[in-house]
């Protein structure tokens, strides 16, 4: 990881963020890169984020958990095969 982000790194809580996003009903893995939370959703979850309100909710949660940026990565075939279930967020840091 080459990044340092603004704010208190200790306030960043990827586990809690993943759980909070799961509570929204969005199944996704979460990878952390400094202040960037990278979501890797299940293929059928991507369209959910087209809705402004869902996107805003995710952004809000990310901010609450100390992240400045949130991005979504479309799962590759490889990742698709290992997409986690809603209650089992994959965390990578």
């Amino acid at each position, binding site marked *: 990881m080459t*990044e340092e982000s603004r704010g208190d790194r200790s306030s960043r809580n990827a586990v809690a963020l993943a759980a909070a996003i799961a509570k929204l009903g969005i199944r996704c893995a979460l990878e952390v*890169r400094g202040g960037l939370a990278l*979501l890797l959703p299940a293929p059928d979850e991507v369209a959910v984020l087209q809705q402004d309100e869902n*996107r*805003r909710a995710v952004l809000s949660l990310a901010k609450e958990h100390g992240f400045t*940026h949130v991005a979504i990565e479309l799962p590759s075939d490889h990742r698709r095969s290992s997409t986690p279930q809603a209650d089992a967020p994959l965390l990578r840091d």
Partner: protein
Amino acid sequence: MFGGREIWESRKTPATAAATRRKVTARRATSLNTPARREPYTGTSPIITAPRLLARWPQRGHIEAYVTTGPPQWAHTAIDTRNTGEVDLDRDRWDRGEPTQRRGGDHNSNSAPASRPGSRGIVAPCAGAADCLRAGTADSLLIAMDLDLDANTEAELAGKTDALAAWLRAHAPVAVGYSGGVDSAYLAVAARRTLGAEGALAIIGRSASYPAEQWATARAVADRFDVRVLELDTAELDDPRYAANPSNRCYYCKTELWGRLVPVAHARGFSTVVDGTNADDLNDYRPGAQAAREHHVASPLAELGFTKLDIRRASRALGIPTWQQPSSPCLSSRVPYGTEVTRGRLRQIELAEASLRRLGIAGDLRVRFHDDLARVELAPAELSAWLAPDRLALLTATVAQAGFARVALDLRGFRSGSLNVLHGVGLA
């Protein structure tokens, strides 16, 4: 967090005041960094007190609202009233004060029009809003902004353009550091119109950090307005202090640029060298400005108070096609501070952005470099459409072809200075 208030708007002449007076219910959000002010809004002050509203509608049923609390803080919100219903700010986001840190510059709206007459549309706060207003209805907002403020703004802008012409005449002949961006394009054309073909020279510094697409725009504008152009190669990437990509990287770039450009301009008889820095830029983190000062490069647009919005409006009046062009900083701005800038990486970024443009993506666009990952920022208006799974797959494949192993789409969309936020670089 909101302080409710009524705003009354009227024309200046008593004869028409009664007929045109409109009541606009507005509420202003306090921001994280600007205290709420309670003074009455008369709508007659051209610049000063908060909030200032400017409006224009390029087409029926569409308005653009510029909301400021006085320079340099302003925000841009586009409100679609074609299916006029109530419009309401996304109060939750305002209440969170999100986002409020950015000052100056251009900001695109994040808006969703009312879908049918009588329905409520949501206008989300745009990036950069430090203090804004909550409109009661779109109609009222539209009327209020039309009556006085547009006229005031036109008069104000005319004053600035006259002042610029006078400044240019007093400092002729003038060489313009020219990139083909919104600011320098306007300045070059204004200099050409004021001083004639022999009195103005636009000088382009070319390097790997300067997109070929922008070079083409620069040449096209110069051709169209008969601006003389000189091109110089610059070699900022050969300077290890630049390539190391510190937070003051722009200082080394501009040192290289002006170090080459100014002597050439002087040798050709152009005693004055200017750049396109505008008044909004003065409130941003711009380490390159120091290099300009060291090389005695003047910034008449900033000196005369031209904001980015002023420059867009003045450009539109002159028919300069860059008036609606997104801001276009150099390609190195996509690379996080501390990550080495190389020709290969810049080429990757340039290829990716050019390819995305060919897909029809309009407005602000950045491909941010994160080693193996490209993080794409789109204008908020484009975002929803590109989150459709098939289109996201297309976007991903397109960017991957530029050599990125992984591609991600930023959920918030374009943010000017996004990497500054990520890396904690603030105002100097």
